[in-house]
């Protein structure tokens, strides 16, 4: 039972990362119709940013937590302006290819400058201990990450459903032309939305730094899993990406505890195949208009 609870908490923590990354992808996709392959690279840059903040500037985790996502968000906005924007009128595949190219460049730039070896990053002092709940003990940092991820997802949900900005973004996602006809400059919103999605990936990266060895390839394989999560949930569905993110996290953790190791690693892809058979649009997605 203790093991089961522990695994569930681990699953929720990993699920938090999937959810934050999938959420960023979904927000960007909704507004720009761009599947951002570079999302994993931005996550890696987030972790590297936290590591460099400490090593080069002596800034602690608590400084990096707000600072790095903001810097990455600005970088993302610059990228959107400079390149992604130019391709939004074309087939979305071109932007997929472009962001794939950006991924390779970002990864290898970091590799070139800092090498492939893993860089340890310490858990902040305040979160080093364990939390007790009855007879169970959880590492405080993991509980913090889970709480933070839930908070971040809730904040995005609040932003999208309860504020005027969110209303504009949702309207532009659903019917860009009609929104424009109502006097809202839709094109002006794509840059901040892209930056916001990138910042979310960067935030996930900073949170991941103390849990993983910081290295240039840490986002490379994660992004594929997040793609599978997004296909399962239904791309463009905000709720779907968050729910599937946490669900996949828990399922993988349980599989890790109670099944041979290969099961945990292939689980997400097998679920994806099953969803494609049963509901090709994803669990929370709507049917595409038939091509």
């Amino acid at each position, binding site marked *: 039972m203790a093991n089961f609870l522990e695994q569930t908490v681990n699953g929720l923590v990993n699920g938090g990362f999937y959810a934050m990354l999938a959420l960023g992808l979904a927000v960007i996709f909704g507004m720009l119709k761009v599947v951002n392959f570079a999302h994993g690279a931005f996550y890696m840059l987030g972790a590297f940013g936290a590591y460099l903040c400490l090593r080069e500037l002596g800034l602690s985790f608590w400084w990096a937590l707000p600072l790095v996502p903001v810097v990455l968000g600005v970088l993302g906005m610059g990228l959107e302006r400079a390149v992604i924007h130019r391709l939004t009128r074309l087939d979305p595949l071109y932007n997929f290819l472009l962001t794939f190219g950006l991924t390779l460049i970002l990864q*290898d730039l970091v590799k070139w400058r800092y090498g492939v070896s893993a860089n340890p990053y310490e858990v902040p002092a305040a979160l080093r201990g364990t939390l007790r709940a009855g007879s169970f003990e959880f590492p405080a940092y993991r509980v913090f990450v889970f709480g933070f991820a839930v908070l971040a997802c809730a904040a995005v949900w609040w932003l999208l459903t309860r504020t005027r900005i969110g209303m504009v973004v949702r309207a532009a996602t659903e019917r860009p032309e009609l929104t424009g006809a109502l006097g809202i400059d839709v094109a002006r919103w794509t840059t901040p939305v892209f930056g916001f999605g990138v910042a979310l990936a960067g935030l996930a990266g900073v949170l991941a730094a103390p849990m993983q060895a910081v290295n240039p390839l840490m986002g490379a394989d994660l992004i594929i899993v997040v793609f599978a999560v997004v296909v399962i949930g239904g791309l463009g569905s905000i709720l779907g990406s968050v729910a599937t993110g946490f669900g996949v996290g828990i399922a993988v953790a349980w599989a890790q505890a109670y099944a041979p190791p290969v099961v945990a690693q292939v689980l997400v892809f097998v679920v*994806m195949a099953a969803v494609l058979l049963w509901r090709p649009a994803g669990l929370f997605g709507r049917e595409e208009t038939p091509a």
Partner: protein
Amino acid sequence: MRKSLRFLPLAAGLVVVAVLPRVLYPPVALDIVCWALFAVAVDLLLGYTGLLSFGHAAFWGTSAYTAGLVAEHTGAPFPLAVLAGAAAAAVLAVPVGYLSVRRTGIYFAMVTLAFAQLMYVVANQWRGLTGGENGLQDVPRTLFGTHPFGTDLSDPYYFYYWMLPLALLGFLAAWRIVHSPFGRVLVAIRDNPARARALGYPVHRYKLVAFVLSAALAGLAGGLFAMSHQFVTLDTLHWTTSGQAVVMVVLGGIGTLWGAPVAAAILVRLQDILSLAHFEEVGLLTGGVFVVVVLLFRRGIWGTVAALLRRWRIG
């Protein structure tokens, strides 16, 4: 183009492949041919069916492992091992394709990517068979023994000419598929799937057949690649490998068939130069080519050349 000119690229291409290992370091020539065939397989789907597969490493890698294992365990001559690999890739493509063609566009790219990652994970876990991170080492390369007709098969120079017929067979198959009635239907589906369906063509089934054919060709290339290197690593299944094939197609010109081999030759050669200079961050080159081509040069090399030729002829 005038009829006599139409055979110019073919003649030029044949001359180039015939002299390639004399001009270049033979292992590089081998890599060029393998990657060219792989890229043509991807172009068959992207350029002629309108499906961007970002997971063709699954077929390239599965075939490489199959060919390697067959050669290692049965001592079969290399063409048989390669064909076994291609067959394995085609078999794998049936379920993967069946599921993937249910989605189109960007979703198709993501789904194929995920399936390729599944194969990567399985190969990494199944150490007893694949050797895990060590891969398969010392894959034997035989054909009527190790010295067919007095040539040394372990020498890449001679091996190049022994594997070339198989590779050319692959190119010929791609050319035949594109120029067959079946290929015309694929193009119709690419341009307007709704109309193709209305005309009574089972669109999903056509896409699936195209997918399996493309996977078999990618498998043929992967098997030849395994035999050329005489080892197989996990890299053959990684998504960067899929991306590498896609960048060759895009640089060469989507839907041109001829462009992909030209781009493959350029990229493989450039990567060889970089690795000789001990520069290991090849992603900067591949990624940079992706960004530049997609932003400025979407017709690719062959598409640009063809457009220039047309313009000169007309006016």
